């Protein structure tokens, strides 16, 4: 198949799987009101995310009730789903008017703003493309691990059983290979890749997994944009600032600028795309959109918005446990901050404080009842429960998996980052302006004095969302022991970028607002102040771009990976894999072999086939004792304990870097050397 035909198929499959189901679902839900409730950018962004989640749930459902996951199934269920949604859109009467409701006028952009958005998007995608050009070749370890499961689904047509073979020590220094469950992988991370492969037949070790992740990354930036657009469309901003400068559209554009071209390459952006960090990327797409729908549900008293927020949250929990876990904490913090601000606000201005507080909470509860106790929400919870119990429960819902995330930090990498490390994780500029934005957000609702505002809890919600989101991730990253969590701190820090970006947009725009309103003084002119501002502003921008340029690689990693692919293909074609026979095990080294995690895709025998000699430090980790066979069998193949390991685990082939680990096999008469490339060798045990 030529690359052009491949690309046509690939783009068609993206539209079919990641746009159509969600678009028609939104159309069926909001019907004629869709174009009145959502701007075209919002329709694109929400359609993409809901398509992702819908496709996952459809495939899990049909896979679990016994259908084979193949091309006919996908080509049937997606059009049928879209058609059903279209029929609802066409023939069901329009939505009843929601009561009561705030004005839901669509945000509009002037020509300059429209062109700015296009330029920012162009610049963002350009920088990311420049980086990915040399990083798109499938070399990332994580991506290799994930693609094994996606390929397994595509090849077997079944939902995978997340197990892997492990070497375990039995009695008297004997070993055996036994199958163990894996809690780290979640089905939602793998189905979309299986779907695209099933439809297009493009191999997994190609560009398509990274391009799917790239599209998720681009849409997650738009998710930030639309969240910013809606969250700042609030009366507290309108009444307190110069609307010409500080308005939702400007804030959304600055958000896009801070989230897009600045630090476009650093984690969790393009580096996560090429690195195959699927869960984080999906988390960064779904978390802002869940907050977007929840906020709009409350603001517009729209239960269907809540339904979509809950639907995406469910999708998040079926895709990535870390993101789901963090999302729960974010919601918890938002709730706390909201209550603190709510009480503070009422106490600040109320004459009869207790009475007023009670009245305000009653109003809030009445509004919540209005959107929660609706048929669609009740149906959602019943459906979700039935799906969880009867159809499919994520693998991480096991006591052992939960125990690994909760408790005192078990490693130094989980004990929290320093402020310096946190600054680099978020980005200096975003952190600085983010903090300014947070202060403004927290103070402004309290300082507003009119009666109408005092009774409107909605004024506090944007502040509660952003302050809660930021403070949650700050504490989870810097002081995880306060929350009794045991998660890798640097991974959690990657989630902190987004809330700092949104609040940073407010901070930056407020700074511009202050500069614009400065007057000439007797000792310094306005022009000088402008110049100082431009100088100060340009420094962090350059630091962002400097970060981008530092991340650009000079490429050519692919040639080493091709050697690994060549070797794997050679060995896989020479080994006879037969369901009824015991296949000899293979062992490879992870320390010196490039792209070794992709080897398993050539054998497709087990997640742990070939076995791997992991990083040396892992064998010395006192907090997590592990089997030593994989280390001994490569590092000291002539030793008695290694011989026992070879015998017990039936390991026959060893793949090593010739110059590093070749000598110990060359001097051992028990091994043949059956293959040699420029850097790799395969040794076979007699």
């Amino acid at each position: 198949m030529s690359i052009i035909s491949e690309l046509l198929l690939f783009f068609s499959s993206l539209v079919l799987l990641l746009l159509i189901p969600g678009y028609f679902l939104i159309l069926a839900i909001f019907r004629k009101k869709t174009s009145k409730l959502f701007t075209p950018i919002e329709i694109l962004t929400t359609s993409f995310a809901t398509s992702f989640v819908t496709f996952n749930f459809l495939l899990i459902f049909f896979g679990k009730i016994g259908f084979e996951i193949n091309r006919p199934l996908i080509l049937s269920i997606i059009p049928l789903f879209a058609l059903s949604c279209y029929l609802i859109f066409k023939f069901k009467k329009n939505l009843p008017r929601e009561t009561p409701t705030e004005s839901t006028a669509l945000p509009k952009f002037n020509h300059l703003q429209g062109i700015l958005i296009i330029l920012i998007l162009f610049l963002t995608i350009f920088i990311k493309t420049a980086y990915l050009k040399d990083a798109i070749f499938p070399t990332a370890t994580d991506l290799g691990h994930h693609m094994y499961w996606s390929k397994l689904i595509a090849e077997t047509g079944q939902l995978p059983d997340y197990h892997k073979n492990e070497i375990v020590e039995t009695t008297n220094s004997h070993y055996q290979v036994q199958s163990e469950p894996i809690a780290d992988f979640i089905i939602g991370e793998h189905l979309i890749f299986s779907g695209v492969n099933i439809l297009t037949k493009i191999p997994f070790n190609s560009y398509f997994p990274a391009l799917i992740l790239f599209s998720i990354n681009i849409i997650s930036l738009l998710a930030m944009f639309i969240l910013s657009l809606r969250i700042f469309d609030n009366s507290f901003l309108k009444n307190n600032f110069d609307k010409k400068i500080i308005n939702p559209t400007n804030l959304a554009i600055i958000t896009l600028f801070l989230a897009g071209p600045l630090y476009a390459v650093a984690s969790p952006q393009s580096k996560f795309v090429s690195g195959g960090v699927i869960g984080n990327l999906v988390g960064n797409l779904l978390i802002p959109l869940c907050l977007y729908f929840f906020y709009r549900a409350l603001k517009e008293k729209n239960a269907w918005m809540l339904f979509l927020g809950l639907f995406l949250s469910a999708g998040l929990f079926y895709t990535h446990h870390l993101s789901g876990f963090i999302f729960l904490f974010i919601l918890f913090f938002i709730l706390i901050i909201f209550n603190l601000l709510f009480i503070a606000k009422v106490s600040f201005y109320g004459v009869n404080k207790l009475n007023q507080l009670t009245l305000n909470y009653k109003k809030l509860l009445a509004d919540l009842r209005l959107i929660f106790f609706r048929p669609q929400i009740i149906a959602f919870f019943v459906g979700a429960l039935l799906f969880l119990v009867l159809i499919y429960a994520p693998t991480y819902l096991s006591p052992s998996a939960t125990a690994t995330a909760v408790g005192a930090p078990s490693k130094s990498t989980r004990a929290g980052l320093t402020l310096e490390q946190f600054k680099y994780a978020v980005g200096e500029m975003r952190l600085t302006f983010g903090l300014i934005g947070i202060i403004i957000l927290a103070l402004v609702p309290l300082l507003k004095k009119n009666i109408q505002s005092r009774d409107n809890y909605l004024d506090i919600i944007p502040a509660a969302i952003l302050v809660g989101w930021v403070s949650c991730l700050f504490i989870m990253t810097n002081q995880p022991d306060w929350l009794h969590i045991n998660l890798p701190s640097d991974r959690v820090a990657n989630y902190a970028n987004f809330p700092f970006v949104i609040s940073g947009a407010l901070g930056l725009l407020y700074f511009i607002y202050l500069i614009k309103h400065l007057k000439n003084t007797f000792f310094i002119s306005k022009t000088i102040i402008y110049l100082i501002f431009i100088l100060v502003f340009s420094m962090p921008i350059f630091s962002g771009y400097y970060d981008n340029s530092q991340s650009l690689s000079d490429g050519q990693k692919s040639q080493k990976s091709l050697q690994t692919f060549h070797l794997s293909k050679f060995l896989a074609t020479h080994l006879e894999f037969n369901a009824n026979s015991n296949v000899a095990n293979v062992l490879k080294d992870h320390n010196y072999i490039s792209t070794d995690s992709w080897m398993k895709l050539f054998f497709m025998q087990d997640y742990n086939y070939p076995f791997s000699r992991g990083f040396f430090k892992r064998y010395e980790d006192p907090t997590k004792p592990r089997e030593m066979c994989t280390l001994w069998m490569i590092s000291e193949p002539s030793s008695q304990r290694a011989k026992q390991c070879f015998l017990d685990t039936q390991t026959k082939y060893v793949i090593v870097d010739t110059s590093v680990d070749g000598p110990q096999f060359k001097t051992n008469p028990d091994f043949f050397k059956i293959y040699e490339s420029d850097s790799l060798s395969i040794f076979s045990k007699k």
Partner: protein
Amino acid sequence: MFNQKFILISLTAIVLVSFSFLAISENKQHLIKDGWFLYFNNIEGDSLDFTIENYSNTSDFTWETSVDGKSLNKQYIKVLKGKQKDVRINELPEIKGRQIKITVYKSKEIKEIYKNFDK
């Protein structure tokens, strides 16, 4: 007011160009540009037939068989870039209890594969 559909149209165009460029670029990287490979055709059993696969610009190779370190046979072979050649080893002395090694030379590069046979 700016028609937001222009933003979507522009975004679609940018994404199409970027994705196509990346796909074509990645596709080109699947070509092995240098190096060569040496391997037995049959990884089990007694057969010593082997293959040289060449991706380098030099096509001149020399292969040599040796038994327990003693050279038996040395021959020149030409393998063009992007091609592979199978070499059949028919005549060998008693192999039981010995190591039979195939050494291939290309300029200053040497690769070797071998089998150790039981008595």
